[in-house]
């Protein structure tokens, strides 16, 4: 193995409690929003049966009712979408609310890296 004698990071990363608290509350907002959507859709699938006969009696492909299609495929696609949206949004929020714009990027006098 190579020797681990790097000079160490040029500037220690550091978060202040106020910044962390802000990111925390924003992330909580993101999580609660997505949980609301998740719960709503998950509850709607069985509950629609009572409200809408078509949901479980109608036929989409062959003998598949809309509810069956939703339970067999749709829900998984939905879970994946919710997770992807929540994860990318949370990561983006953290990236923007904690730490600075990449200090280790080469710092010429060129235009800002947008």
């Amino acid at each position, binding site marked *: 193995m190579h020797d681990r004698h790097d000079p160490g990071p040029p500037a220690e990363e550091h978060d202040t409690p106020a910044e962390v608290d802000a990111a925390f509350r924003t992330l909580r907002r993101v999580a609660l929003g997505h949980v609301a959507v998740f719960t709503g859709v998950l509850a709607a699938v069985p509950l629609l049966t009572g409200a*809408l006969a078509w949901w479980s009696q109608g036929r989409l492909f062959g003998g598949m009712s809309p509810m069956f299609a939703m339970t067999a495929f749709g829900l998984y696609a939905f879970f994946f979408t919710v997770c992807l949206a929540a994860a990318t949004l949370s990561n983006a929020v953290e990236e923007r609310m904690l730490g600075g714009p990449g200090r280790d990027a080469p710092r010429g006098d060129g235009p800002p890296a947008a």
Partner: protein
Amino acid sequence: MSNGSLPLAGVIALLWGAMYLVTQVLAAPPLGTGTTVLIGAGLTTALVVGYPSALRGPRSKGRTRSAPARLQQGRHGTTIAAVGRSMPLRSGLTADGARRTAQLLQPLLSGAAVAITDRERVLAFAGPGAGHHRSGDAAAPPTAGALSRGKTVLVRRGGELGCPAPECPLRTAVIAPLTDGKRTVGTLQVFRCDGALTPRGVVEGLAGILSLHLELAELNRRQRLAVDAKLDALRAQINPHFLFNTLNTIASKAHTDPEETRQLLVRLSDFFRYVVRQEGHFAKFGQEYFFVRTYVSLEQARYGERVRVRYDIDPQVLTARVPVLIIQPLVENAIKHGLTDKVEGGTVTLKARVDPLTRTTSIRVADDGAGIPADVLERISNGERRPGDGQGLSNIAGRLASLYGERYRLDIRSSEDGGTVVDLQTPLG
């Protein structure tokens, strides 16, 4: 703003198409119309409300410029009104603008050639004879007359045009001056090959429209200059006291806490790097927020527990475009005039929200500090300024006005000992 609505409309159309397909075509007993419409309306509402969060989420790293420019160009009309609308000269009398104007005008003037010159050279030439009349050539000799007298010049004989090429088809010319309000800056020249003259009224009318555009461009440029000057003033104004105080704080900690000293120095360099490198008048809120955080942590190093801060930020607001160097001065005011006068200190709250329905960004900077006396508040509201006011609100208000016109709101409420609340609302875009 508009480039966000188009995809939304597309998505909604897709949604209804999919709804129709699933509920009416694929399903064996189709779903009742009323229920379908109800579900569709519900989904549409959810989509419209949720759309900005999806749009303003993690994306928007890439640029979506250049689309509007293309749109402009594609809107070629064949009427004079189209020339008036498309305004290719709105950024001044440039070669590119002139070329587009000439191309726009040439088909309107049957069979004629169109040239646009500045005070010396041809900027653009379109129509017969374009083979040897190029942009960059010296303008035809009669141009000087039109420029010096500021009046339209009619040239009835080809010889007077002074074209060295013997095969030049141009016979007559009408040369009308272009002004930007005060000075004559160039000419519009309409040539014909058949010996007749283009009606003078038409050429002068067109020159009038173009002159109006040029005047607007000039006006814009001056306004931009004024705003730039204000921004530059603000950048230069970064309070020297702040730098001294911060450096003193850092120096005092150098012996006791080298780690914190290092962090503070990094933050200080971040602070100045941001001020120096920020270009243009807008930045993403996330960048401005970074600047505010940097500033606040430096102040906290100095004041310790006396300055507390609480950020309350919408996830969607982070990518919203906000004017640069507006929020930090507001926070600085809150700390300097609100908290540091109080012995026990206080809390500054920065709250940022996006309202997707009215498409506004609202930013609130509140403190529970000393508050502003009523007479001073009135003076500030009237835009007066005295030395010692620091990052004057008048500067901020002035810049906002020149960026947004009437489309922003800046409210200050304050009560003595009850703290100050500054509310800023700007259009989301």
